[in-house]
């Protein structure tokens, strides 16, 4: 286990270095300017833009900027966001927890729902519940997240007014509210974006988990369990699922980067100011230090998640844990 963690950590460091360098180089080829849109007024003299470029060091050669940026990163500094008039560290320290909350909740709900759906489908294999749920999960995989998001916003937010259409909290001094009320308010605002993200996760998990379960149900140890007189639900939950869940956990590790990617769109639509929205805004504004920090953090997150799922898969796989 220690070897696995060390190997993964070294791998993660190498991936992050390559990604950061590649993104820096690619940004140099992107047309545009950090102050093109913010200082675009007809009454703003061109000299002002040149002045601002110089102030933030964008007039220096790319190699010098890269060396400066890498040196600052080594000292734990992420630079300054010209579009936000804040340090990048301050911006990401606000945004990262929000994305982790959104993605984390979506992942937990999606995973639990996906596994539950798969067990139900396996229990009623080739009967109507299996077919209906199969069609629904196929729809969940096929329908783009933005469409789901807009439908959820229109029906659950605008028409039925069950949830707020956007934002992360109610107006006013919510910090003075009782804790349970604060949590309830957060959950209420989190509902729509988390449900939309969770639908995609649950659909993928359900389809993979169903296939894995059906594969395991033909195994000898399942036949033995049934022969012992165990009920079908016990067979599924206690014997089949632990043996079929490993690949799905590995799938989650691979799905996390795409989930973070999907969060860019979901955060934008639901006004959830996490890293996805921050990255999107930073790209449009050509806020290079912020883009680099956001990509770097997303990479770290993806690599960490991959490592974590490997470790969890190692822990939950019964046959492997029984090895001496």
């Amino acid at each position, binding site marked *: 286990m220690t070897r696995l963690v060390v190997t993964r950590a070294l791998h993660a460091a190498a991936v992050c270095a390559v990604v950061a360098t590649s993104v820096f180089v690619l940004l140099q080829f*992107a*047309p*545009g*300017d950090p102050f*093109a*849109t*913010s*200082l*675009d*007024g*007809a*009454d*703003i*003299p*061109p000299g*002002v833009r040149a*002045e*601002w470029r110089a*102030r933030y060091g964008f007039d220096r050669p790319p190699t010098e900027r890269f060396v400066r940026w890498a040196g600052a990163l080594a000292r734990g500094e992420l630079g300054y966001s010209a*579009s*936000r*008039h*804040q*340090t990048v560290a301050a*911006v990401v320290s*606000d945004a990262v927890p929000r994305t982790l909350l959104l993605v984390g909740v979506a992942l937990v709900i999606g995973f639990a729902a996906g596994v539950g759906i798969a067990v139900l489908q396996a229990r009623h294999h080739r009967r109507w519940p299996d077919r209906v749920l199969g069609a629904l999960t196929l729809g969940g995989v096929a329908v783009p997240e933005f469409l789901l998001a*807009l439908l959820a*916003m*229109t029906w659950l*937010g*605008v028409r039925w*007014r069950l949830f*707020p*259409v*956007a*934002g*992360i909290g*109610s*107006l*006013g*001094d919510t910090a003075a509210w009782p804790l349970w009320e604060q949590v309830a308010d957060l959950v209420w605002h989190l509902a729509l974006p988390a449900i939309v993200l969770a639908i995609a996760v649950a659909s993928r998990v359900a389809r993979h988990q169903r296939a894995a379960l059906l594969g395991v149900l033909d195994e000898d140890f399942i036949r033995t369990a049934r022969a012992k007189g165990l009920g079908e639900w016990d067979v599924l939950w206690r014997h089949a699922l632990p043996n079929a869940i490993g690949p799905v956990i590995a799938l989650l590790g691979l799905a996390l980067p795409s989930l973070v990617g999907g969060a860019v769109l979901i955060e*934008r*639509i*639901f*006004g959830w*100011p996490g890293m996805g*929205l*921050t990255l*999107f*805004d930073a790209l*449009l*504004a*050509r806020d290079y230090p912020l883009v680099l920090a956001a990509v770097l953090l997303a990479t770290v997150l993806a690599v960490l998640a991959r490592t974590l799922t490997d470790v969890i898969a190692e822990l939950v796989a019964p046959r492997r844990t029984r090895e001496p």
Partner: protein
Amino acid sequence: MTRIFLGRLALVLCLAAACGGRDRGPTGGIVVVSAGADAETLFPPLVVTNQGRAVTELIYDKLADIGPGLNTIGDAGFVPKLASTWEWSRDSLTITFHMNPNARWHDGRPVTARDVQYAFKVWTDSAVGAVQRSALASVDSIATPDALTARVHFRERAPEQFFAFVYTLIPLPAHRLAAIADTALHDAAEVRAPVGNGPFRFVSWMPRVRLELAANAAYYAGRPRLDGVVYVVAAQGATVAARLLAGEADFLEQLAPPDFAQLPADHSVRAQAYGGFDYLFVQFNLRDPAATERAHPIFGDVALRRALTLGVNRTAIVRSIFDTLARPAIGPFSRTQWTADTTLRGIPFDSALAARALDSLGWHDTNGDGVRERGGRPLAFSLLVPASSRARQAAAVLLQAQLKTIGVRVTIEQADFNAFLDRAHRAAFDALVGGVRTSPSPRGVRDVWSTPGPAAGTQNFGRWSNTTFDAHVDSALAATSAGAVRAHVRTAYQAAIDDAPAIWLYEPRLFAGVHRRLTVGALRPDAWWANVASWSIDPAQRLPRDRRASPTP
């Protein structure tokens, strides 16, 4: 005696009605404004966007504000704000502002002439990088003979010197900011939680989420009717509108055409029209993008530009995209500007005449592929469009179809807005669908359409140059009477229409989305937020959020 007394009484009552209108009617309630962007900063010298202005101009007052007529010549119609009166020197090179003695910063300290002087120093210090400081270039210095008198000395007389000064300079609290180095002002804690002097005081700001303001109970012009204003931010246009339609917001600055179809049947949200300063156009690059010293092989010819304009049915384009929510543009101006002239002679749509004009210029479809050629060169060009604007994309597609019928091939190129601007500044395009948000002043037309140079034409991406236009714009900006300005501007506009450096496409009509519970009065076209202090919410339609928002001290 009785007549004099009654006359004075009537005058006092009129003044009370005009100045103290805010005291009548209900007070209380929180207005939630659904915004598509956040303020980039709360430090007035660095504010560029309308969203930034919409926040900072509620926190900070100006010395005087432009009047409802939007006049920019002299001081006619300007409304006293922090300065209760002002007077001009005989040579017009000095304006003396007398500060309102009741004006207070939100921390209770009086607003003084020193704050005006300090603001001028900050605005003009290149270390701060104030983007609008060129508007103050004609100001030489500001003297403060006493605490409530600011004497502004100008280097030269100009018809718009008063407008340029008071519209740009916002007094800053010297007692709080002067100790901070100018280079550190842009992200100082004092700047992120500003102490202003306007009708609303700063409460909290969660960037990209929301910004809360509360009524300033000690406001020198009377407490605002509202208890507060909250801006809630969403980046997606559909979300911004959905907030209003779901009842989570009370006001939306601009309804997009698709939003109108969703306005609730119960009429809880209404659309309120107010003029806009935007106009959009297809701008031709008159220089060859490959070698700017040469004329563009197609657009260098004015007759061809006019022929292309003849071939475009702008009314049909506007109807298709906007229905009645926009109007075909007339020239390089917006109808909302006081210098606008709707009687100018435009180039009408006539595709048959366009085809004949192209024939006469030697452009013929010799190989039957539907595209005209001359000397082996097809009559084809690329049209650059920002990917962020669906309306401009739709206009480009319709234009492409219309020009195809007269044998012109248009290839549409999309670029994200930053890349679009980058190419525009480098003149790396054939034609682009551009847009300008101008201001009440006619000065803006010089920056966009005058011959490119260090002093003017800085955004003339197409490198168009016309001496008649330049001369009359310069004369208009130097004229001291509104009539003379109008006369010069009219000639300049007509020159621009005749020379066709662009196809003048459309002017969007702005409609704000307003919840029924909110009364807003007239919205000023250049600044919808200008009269927020007099907005009110019907007490019978208060919502829980009106009570739960941060209380007013």
